[in-house]
């Protein structure tokens, strides 16, 4: 509003309203390319996904293509693997995010200190986060490799293991192994976000707390944590959503196996579409995924709003 008033003051010859309308039209014009991109690659496909979920659409059986109503959703409700994947998704998200947060916070606290070579160390520590998911998956597949993997070798040399372990093909260990890989990858995200939060805490507050006799731990609990609450909420929520949706790593490392031990809902959806070519069922699964995410996002927006206003 103030822009209009100011520029309007500069050019008194033109009527205020037309300038304003013109500005509005320019604004809308600038938005057109982005709107077209998102319509064509997000909005229309989501509509299409909802439509697909109501059809029997298996790519290699085009003659069976017909409207089935909610049959795909009923099949989903009765599919024990689907319910297993929901539980696996919970473990995957919970395990990944908690560990990433704890180690990421520790990293942020260390990087917040002033020491020589800090810029270099910071760049190095961020590396796992920016490389492609396939690359992360392959690197760790090689580290976990039963016979030639360095992890088995180190653990046996250290005396912590007696026999070689097939980390990714043992149903009891596979989930822990992929979560550990995901933690390795995600630590830098929390480190960056929380470091930014730490740097925004005014130094005077620590000084004041110190003068009042607060120790290191007291200052952490009563100064650092409360002030960082907004960024902690934002970072954690973003990470939960992202991890829940993320399929690449598990797809590359185990494809959800062995025996669905690492099958999360997003990889299950991917397999239905990519391997089974069952688009109707995949679409129904993805619509359910979307609904879960929307519910979570709505709750998250409500919480962050509360945090910002506080």
């Amino acid at each position, binding site marked *: 509003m*103030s*822009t209009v008033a100011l*520029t309007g003051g*500069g050019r008194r010859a033109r009527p205020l309203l037309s300038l304003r309308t013109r*500005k*509005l039209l*320019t*604004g809308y014009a600038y*938005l057109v*390319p*982005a709107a077209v*991109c*998102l319509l064509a*690659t*997000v909005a*229309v*496909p989501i509509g299409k996904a909802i439509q697909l979920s109501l059809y029997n659409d298996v790519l290699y059986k085009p003659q069976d293509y017909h409207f089935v109503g909610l049959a795909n959703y009923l099949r989903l409700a009765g599919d024990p693997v689907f319910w297993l994947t929901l539980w696996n998704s919970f473990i995957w998200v919970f395990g990944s995010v908690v560990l990433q947060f704890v180690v990421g916070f*520790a990293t942020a606290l*260390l990087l917040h*200190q*002033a020491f020589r070579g800090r810029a270099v*160390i910071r*760049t*190095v520590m*961020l*590396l*796992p986060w920016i*490389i*492609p998911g*396939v*690359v992360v998956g*392959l*690197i*760790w597949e*090689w*580290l976990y*490799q039963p016979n*030639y993997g*360095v992890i088995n070798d180190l653990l046996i040399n250290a005396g912590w293991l007696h026999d070689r372990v097939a980390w990714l093909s043992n149903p009891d260990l596979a989930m822990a192994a992929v979560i550990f890989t995901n933690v*390795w990858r995600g*630590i830098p995200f929390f480190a960056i*976000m929380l470091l*930014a*939060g730490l740097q925004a805490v005014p*130094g005077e507050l620590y000084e004041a707390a*110190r003068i009042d006799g607060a120790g*290191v731990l007291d200052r952490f609990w009563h100064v650092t944590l409360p002030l960082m609450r*907004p960024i902690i909420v934002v*970072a954690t929520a973003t990470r939960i*959503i992202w991890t829940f*949706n993320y*399929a*690449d790593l598990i*797809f*590359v490392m185990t494809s959800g196996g062995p025996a669905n031990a690492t099958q999360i809902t*997003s990889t299950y959806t991917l397999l239905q*579409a*990519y391997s089974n070519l069952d688009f109707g069922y995949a679409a129904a699964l*993805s619509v359910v*995924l979307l609904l879960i995410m929307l519910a979570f996002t709505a709750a998250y927006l409500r919480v962050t709003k509360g945090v910002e206003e506080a």
Partner: protein
Amino acid sequence: MRRRRRSASLSERLLGGPVLWIGLVGLTAFALGPFVWMLLTSLKNRQELYATPLQYLPRHVTFENYVDAWTSPITPFSRFFLNSLWVCSVTMIATTVVSVLAGYAIARFRFAGRDTLLLIFLATQMFPSVLLIAPLLTQWRALGLIDTYQALIYSNFSFTVPFTVWMMVGYFSSIPRELEESAMIDGCSQFGSLCRVVLPLAAPGIAATAIFAFVVSWSELLFAISFTTQTNMRTLSAGLLYMVGQYEVQWGPLSAGVIMSTIPVAVLFTFLQRHLIHGLTAGAVKG
């Protein structure tokens, strides 16, 4: 950075000294170790790679794995690399143009539905990409775009644009309006003031946005494996996965491929990390 090191207590000296250094060494080793192991692997010949007991350092450093991966006729890594380079560059340029315009509009014009629009851009980032695979595949098939660069580039917009618009809004909002207003009073048009005043000031942010779009496209896997069927059209991510399926996992060339895929994004990121980090955290940290 101001340091506050007067009259440090014992616990503070411990935290600042040994704990700091042990933590840093440990975390750096953890972050870098897997890369180092992959690099060592890629420099070993076949005997050394599959030696029992494990041989940690290559005795005869060889680059044959790199040559093999790069020139292999079955899994042409050089072709994958060029495919990725092209797809990511076009995605980057198009995304940047689109998000500069949209970001500027959202940051500068107060129109109805502005907040809703921002919310839509935010929410779009939270959609699972597996949701888009079946419908986009149907869409690209109908348009005859399977096995084309266009299909990959357009699909990339679905995740680059929402985020880069969000980043650009942040950068443009931090540029004082008065600068543009005085340019406009001096006779610049709205578009003229965008080009002559705002863009130069926002250049670091725009560069960071562009790099971001490049790096996330470089990592993209699911669209690449779904919308291409020919080996020649695979991008790096899809190609690496294809190498796993082709060879009975030949870790020599594969590790070379992994290292070669990492280098470009690592270099880009090192140059621009400061701006990127600023952009990523700007929305999350309040003043």
